[in-house]
């Protein structure tokens, strides 16, 4: 046994010249690892595992028939450069060590127990796709929506395709001041000509071209020093054509003296905010332009129906906050009412517990873990592990770290890979018995080609297929072009 473990250890050294024949009789040399989810965390972890465990088989199970998670469904259509990471992920996917199995849902088509029995190690990276609600009156009115679902709507996430969003309104309130909030504000305020050559979905482009939106308020409960968006996204917003950024100068009075003492990233971001405040128009607004308001120190108290469309939101009451010594928002007695025909809520996201056997922190909406390790053999990466924070670099860094933890556990024997596991063979049988249609990487490449060719006809990098049944049909070569 000791000897065997030593041998398994050998497969982990980056030595690629190993006595092949000795191993061919022993499946112990093939650590079988599966990853659930196919976004950046998944692909970066897979990249690490393929490189450092050259004998490992890595299988990626994805709920949708198409890969890439938030790179496809989260990154804004007017940020095509960010999607270049798909080239690296594709390279990883084409490794003979990797298998992509799309259209498989953990907790529905397969249980965690079944995956754990089939594989030596299971790494979950299915993200955080449930949004936090405010819990205030009127939240159920129509056109009070999750910003993430709005993103899913314009990015072609199948479950959000039919989101009932009405853009026949002038005033929009976005609750939250992170990058998702800024993304949805930008999409609503961008001249339509700038979007029509992106991979934005046809239905969203059509709706946005008829949008009457003139004003978007980005409302935060705290102040300029606490914004969560990043500076690139703010700079982009300030440079948007025919759109004027509006701030209240008094919101910045307490901030300015603190600027020189801030760490560089926060300092530069705050300096840019101060600059925006300085060039903010005073007096009447130019009604021929669109306006983007940065609203600080406000929390929603309740939503009220519109007088014209009684089931839809028309206005909201906000309470004015102050910051206490710990920089937390404390409500005052002052309230105000603002008009809003559409509310997009972006105050936080949480993961769901995909399977009852998965340890889960319901309060924080994520899986408890230490550097991605739940316990040897079970791992979490990306937002399921960290909560929905950070840019792609943070996810990459975290996912490489989890990849290293899996590698270390396999190499040290904490994950016992000496006994063969069936891996995908067993899972494929379960899926076939259950009548689940799966999508391979080759199948995805057919979908990819059809999307690109449809896009080419309308001057877009791709026209995304937004319906799961159509994705499946195209993936097997039906319903082409």
């Amino acid at each position, binding site marked *: 046994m000791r000897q065997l473990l030593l041998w398994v250890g050998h497969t982990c050294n980056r030595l690629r010249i190993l006595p092949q024949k000795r191993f061919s009789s022993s499946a112990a040399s093939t650590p079988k690892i599966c990853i659930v989810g196919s976004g950046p965390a998944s692909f970066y972890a897979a990249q690490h595992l393929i*490189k450092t465990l050259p004998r490992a088989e890595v299988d990626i199970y994805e709920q949708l028939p198409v890969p890439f998670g938030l790179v496809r469904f989260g990154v804004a259509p007017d940020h095509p*450069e960010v999607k*270049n990471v798909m080239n690296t992920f594709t390279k990883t996917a084409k490794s003979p060590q990797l298998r992509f199995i799309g259209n498989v849902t953990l907790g529905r088509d397969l249980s965690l127990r079944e995956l754990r029995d089939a594989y030596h190690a299971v790494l979950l990276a299915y993200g955080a796709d449930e949004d936090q609600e405010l819990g205030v009156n009127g939240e159920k009115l129509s056109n009070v929506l999750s910003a993430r679902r709005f993103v899913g709507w314009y990015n072609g996430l199948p479950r959000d395709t039919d989101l009932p969003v009405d853009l026949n309104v002038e005033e929009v309130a976005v609750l939250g001041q992170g990058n998702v909030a800024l993304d949805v504000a930008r999409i609503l305020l961008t001249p339509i000509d700038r979007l029509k050559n992106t991979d934005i979905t046809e239905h969203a482009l059509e709706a946005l071209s008829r949008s009457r939106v003139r004003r978007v308020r980005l409302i935060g409960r705290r102040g300029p020093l606490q914004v969560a968006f990043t500076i690139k996204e703010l*700079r982009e917003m300030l440079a948007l054509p025919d759109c004027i950024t509006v701030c209240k100068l008094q919101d910045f009075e307490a901030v300015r003296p603190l600027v020189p003492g801030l760490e560089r*990233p926060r300092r530069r971001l705050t300096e840019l905010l101060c600059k925006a405040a300085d060039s903010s128009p005073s007096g009447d607004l130019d009604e021929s332009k669109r306006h983007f308001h940065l609203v600080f120190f406000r929390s929603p108290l309740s939503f009220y129906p519109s007088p014209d469309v009684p089931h839809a939101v028309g206005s909201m009451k906000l309470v004015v906050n102050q910051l206490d010594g710990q920089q937390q928002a404390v409500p005052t007695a002052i309230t105000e009412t603002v008009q809003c025909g559409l509310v997009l809520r972006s105050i936080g996201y949480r993961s769901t517990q995909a399977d009852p056997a998965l340890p889960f922190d319901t309060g924080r909406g994520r899986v408890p873990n230490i550097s991605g390790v739940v316990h040897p053999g079970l791992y979490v990466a990306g937002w399921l592990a960290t909560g929905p924070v950070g*840019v*792609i*670099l943070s996810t990459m860094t975290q996912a*490489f*770290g989890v990849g290293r933890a899996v590698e270390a556990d396999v190499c040290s024997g904490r994950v016992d890979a000496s006994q063969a596991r069936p891996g995908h063979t067993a899972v494929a049988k379960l899926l076939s018995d259950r009548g689940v249609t799966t999508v391979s990487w080759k199948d995805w490449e057919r979908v990819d080609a059809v999307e690109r060719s449809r896009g080419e006809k309308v001057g877009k990098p791709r026209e995304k297929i937004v319906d799961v049944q159509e994705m499946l049909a195209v993936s097997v070569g039906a319903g082409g072009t």
Partner: protein
Amino acid sequence: MAKVLAFSRILRSLHNTKYISRSLIKCQHTSAPLQCSSKTQPLPKKEIVEVTFVKANGERIKVKGKEGDSLLDIVVNNSVDLDGYGACEGTLTCSTCHLIFKKEDFDRLPDKATDEELDMLDLAYDLADTSRLGCQIIMRKDLSGLEVRVPATVNDARS
């Protein structure tokens, strides 16, 4: 302006097809797109330059490139083993090609960082006063022999 935009779009699509056009993309981010046209004319034979990448674990990787290559081009063309380096492929939308220079080298780099580059650097780990993005550093003959530090990306293993 429309022409400039169309041109940069062409550059971008060119760029998406292969790595080597990245040095052209650089022009997108400067205020003088006309510089790009000069690059399309025949250039004198490019000199070979040398760069040493020093990884966080102390490993030193010495590689060759050509004048006009960005440091990212040199990493890619030499398949230097740096995980995750250059995720956005030189389009100034990530900070995975972060490098830290020696003070004296930093001071003699031909172009100062633009606001857009600094915006991305602000999201990098181990940000230093002499940090730059490798995709924005275009090699010249006089920079040959350069030694740059590749910061450890993994120092953020949050639970």
